[in-house]
């Protein structure tokens, strides 16, 4: 498995990008040349110098430091979201597949209702209710996306439930809880991991879209989407300020997507799968 990943250039490229972003997120304070939030109007739109390698933004804040710290927000918000989504998805999805027809029907219907809203719209509504803040952006995206995860896990679980080993476990007296934890989840985990990896990419894009729209994060946060929004008035004068944050979002999302995709090719090699 590890060997296969290392042999595939696409997987390596994805892993490398993920590793770089994670490293930057963790070590941002070490490498950032300046305080990302220190406002100095005398350095407004300053050209790149040794102390400020990428120059300064409209409030004289160090652009490079803000970009480095931005990785913290993207990763730091997406990870808890994905963790919550994974737990909710695995718990409800396997439960729905095992708990009998009535429960399954109710849960499926609930998922269908949530899926009837485009995710962005649910998240906007939830942020409207909860107000701004890291906690509400997390809750908003979890509420917007849990139904997708649950549905995917349920579909995986239903396929597994028809297999012989589940029947064998049942016959040898395995209870439902043990069946789910010991047999079902370990067997759907690889496929679920692939889904999760592309989920990270979409959650990063969603967080940045919210920050761009001014929803969810306090003003002045060094988040990439918010930085794009701050820089929008510099389209004529300093277009490079619009370029950097976008490249960061693109590369981060691409890392997770490339890796997830390569992983899927390794785990499920047939061409027809999506």
């Amino acid at each position, binding site marked *: 498995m590890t060997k296969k990943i290392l042999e595939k250039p696409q997987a390596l490229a994805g892993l490398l990008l993920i590793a770089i972003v994670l490293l930057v997120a963790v070590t941002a304070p070490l490498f950032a040349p300046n305080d990302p939030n220190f406002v100095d109007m005398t350095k407004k739109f300053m050209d790149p110098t040794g102390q400020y390698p990428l120059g300064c933004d409209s409030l004289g804040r160090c652009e490079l430091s803000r970009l480095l710290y931005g990785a913290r927000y993207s990763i730091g918000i997406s990870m808890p979201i994905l963790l919550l989504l994974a737990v909710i998805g695995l718990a409800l999805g396997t439960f729905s597949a095992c708990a009998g027809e009535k429960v399954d029907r109710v849960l499926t*219907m609930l998922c269908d209702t949530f899926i009837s809203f485009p995710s962005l719209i649910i998240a906007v509504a939830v942020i409207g209710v909860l107000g701004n803040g890291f906690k509400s952006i997390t809750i908003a995206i979890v509420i917007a996306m849990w139904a997708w995860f649950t549905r995917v896990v349920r579909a995986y679980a239903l396929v597994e439930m028809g297999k012989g080993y589940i029947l064998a476990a049942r016959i040898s007296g395995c209870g439902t809880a043990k069946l789910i934890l010991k047999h079902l989840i370990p067997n759907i985990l690889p496929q679920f991991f692939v889904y999760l990896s592309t989920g990270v*990419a979409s959650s990063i894009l969603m967080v940045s*879209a919210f920050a761009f*729209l001014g929803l969810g994060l306090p003003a002045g946060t060094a988040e990439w*989407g918010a930085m794009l929004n701050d820089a929008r008035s510099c389209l004529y004068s300093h277009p490079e300020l619009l370029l950097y944050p976008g490249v960061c979002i693109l590369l981060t999302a691409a890392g997770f997507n490339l890796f997830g995709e390569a992983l899927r090719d390794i785990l499920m090699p047939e061409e*027809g799968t999506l």
Partner: protein
Amino acid sequence: MGKYIAKRIIGFVAVLIGVSMLSFLLIALSNTDPAEVIARRGGGQVSQDIIEQVRREMELDAPMPIRYLNWIKGLFTGDLGVSIYSYNPITHDLKTFLPVTFRLVSLALLWILLLSVPISLICVRFHNGPLDHITRGVTILGICTPPFWLGFLLLYLFAVRLSWFKVLPEPGLKGYLLPSLTLALPMACAIIRLFRSALLAELSSDYVQYAKGRGLSSSRILTHHVLRNALPPIITVFCQYFGYLIAGSAVVESVFSLKGVGSYLIGCVSSSDATATATCIVIIAGIFVTANLAGDIINRLLCPWMVRESND
């Protein structure tokens, strides 16, 4: 067939009711007091008495189910009151903003159609060739591109550098070209990937072997046989993406300063206008569900043999 459609419509109504309850609930749970927001919108000091008076006038003190029913009645009669965000009647706002979003989304769908079908056909015709590899690379980058950033790149290229367009919205079709392209490109990338694998999956079918055996050219097999058979998933995806495009238009409208439903919705959320927010959400979700239903029914009419579930 009739039974299937009837069953789907019942399910559709059930989901719509669920959707309307959910969007109302989200808004009703909000910890901002609508009466207070309305009373304070003029600014200045507002006493508790005035807030209470507003609450009584707007019937905001009624129990939740009554407020929900009043709102639903308003959705049908068009009497939804005045938006706190724009100071206009909500129905009037929607009448002005919905067409903008519809034009944007329709044009984006046209782009997607024009880009995705030919490109995915070429990819499949020259499978594993250089064009196929380039497309794979470009599309994977495309699905990772934040649409608002793409919008700025296009604006910079076409409006600042080349001066073909203006940065501010222009009247007529020209004003919609860049926004719709921005909305379409990431989606088109996702759809090309989907079509490509749907078409490739078809290629291994027996009828393709048979057509090859009859001596038909590869291009003819693709356009005359494979494309037709791969149509159902393509139609489903198109109808689904119609809804996504409407939701995604909020971001694009913001970049290009277009006044559509998306930017209206964000404005309503920021100024805690509960009724207008709930109305926008229910309308967008309603369009989304309707488009999905339409896709399923069209598929069913085109390919009656595609009985997915035995209990349909």
